[in-house]
């Protein structure tokens, strides 16, 4: 195999793994609400969203496994890599905080993913396009839900408004990373495999601004921003999340249902 093809393959693998990691890590965060959501109906609803993310992660890991020259399985990719090998964007790994924070994150991500997946479903890579098309339908529903929660909490009581505004303020500096192209994505752009993240910003801004205004919330104006997820530089909580998630496979290697 010549050098050029090798690089291209590993860029594709890196990209697919990053997509899988984003979905898995957010799914793992959402699962923390299972059995502890504010009430039963919301518990089921948020768990459904979580399962959509785990399903998306699984689809990308399966594809990554096929691309992997080390022949790791989807399960091994998810359960046997360490923090530095995970390339999820930081916003996905932030602790769930209170319900307002969880919904603030979900909303900004849902707006992003609705736009992002709509582009990714036209990927020249059929597998990626297929996964994106399936996820896009799920994401439309996620946004419908999180948007309602932003309006309800933002324009709700004084306490719900304050909590949601605080949530937005806390996560705002993690958002710019969503619109940054990774090295892998820069390489794959020319073949039309991935989406141009930066180009999604205007649509995201328009949607978010409209909903925040309707919910009587203030768009945070913060100068700080954090990145590094794609390079494996994570927040402190990432290791604890993996410890929880990977415990079984680490303690009982190869264990199956």
């Amino acid at each position: 195999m010549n050098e050029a093809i090798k690089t291209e393959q590993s860029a594709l693998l890196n990209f697919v793994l990053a997509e899988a990691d984003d979905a898995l890590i957010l799914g793992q965060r959402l699962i923390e609400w299972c059995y502890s959501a504010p009430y039963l109906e919301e518990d089921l609803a948020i768990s459904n969203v979580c399962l959509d993310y785990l399903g998306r992660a699984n689809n990308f890991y399966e594809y990554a496994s096929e691309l992997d020259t080390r022949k790791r399985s989807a399960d091994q990719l998810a359960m046997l890599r360490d923090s530095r090998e995970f390339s999820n964007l930081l916003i996905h790994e932030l602790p769930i905080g209170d319900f307002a924070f969880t919904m603030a994150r979900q909303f900004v991500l849902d707006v992003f993913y609705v736009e992002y997946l709509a582009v990714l479903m036209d990927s020249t890579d059929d597998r990626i396009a297929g996964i994106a098309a399936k996820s896009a339908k799920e994401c439309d529903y996620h946004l419908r839900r999180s948007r309602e929660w932003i309006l309800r909490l933002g324009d709700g009581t004084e306490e719900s408004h304050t909590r949601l505004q605080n949530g937005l303020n806390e996560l705002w500096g993690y958002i710019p990373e969503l619109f940054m192209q990774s090295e892998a994505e820069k390489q794959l752009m020319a073949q039309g495999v991935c989406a141009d993240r930066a180009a999604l910003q205007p649509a995201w801004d328009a949607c978010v601004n409209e909903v925040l205004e309707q919910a009587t919330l203030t768009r945070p104006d913060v100068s700080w921003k954090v990145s590094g997820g794609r390079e494996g530089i994570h927040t402190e909580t990432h290791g604890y999340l993996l410890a929880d998630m990977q415990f079984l496979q680490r303690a009982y290697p190869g264990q199956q249902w």
Partner: protein
Amino acid sequence: MNQKNILPLYEIFIRSKRGLDHKHVGSLHAENSEQALEYARDVYTRRSEGVSIWVVLASDITASQEEDASSFYDPSDDKPYRHAMHYVLPEPINNM
């Protein structure tokens, strides 16, 4: 949970296939009817049970009462001529 934190109760009706009627499947609590519809989707159609959902505020339902049974239902017990049992149905009609 104190009284003001209890969300209104909604009765949920699901139509499982086109052509069939909506059937009562259960109830849930929600802030308003839009949220009830979304929760009904998440609680009752997870396994592709439905193609259409109705949500009805439980307090909007007027129900017959147990103590009215004798005046409501008993009088029709001895009126067999109201049933269509004496008509012979054509073969193709099997759901009547």
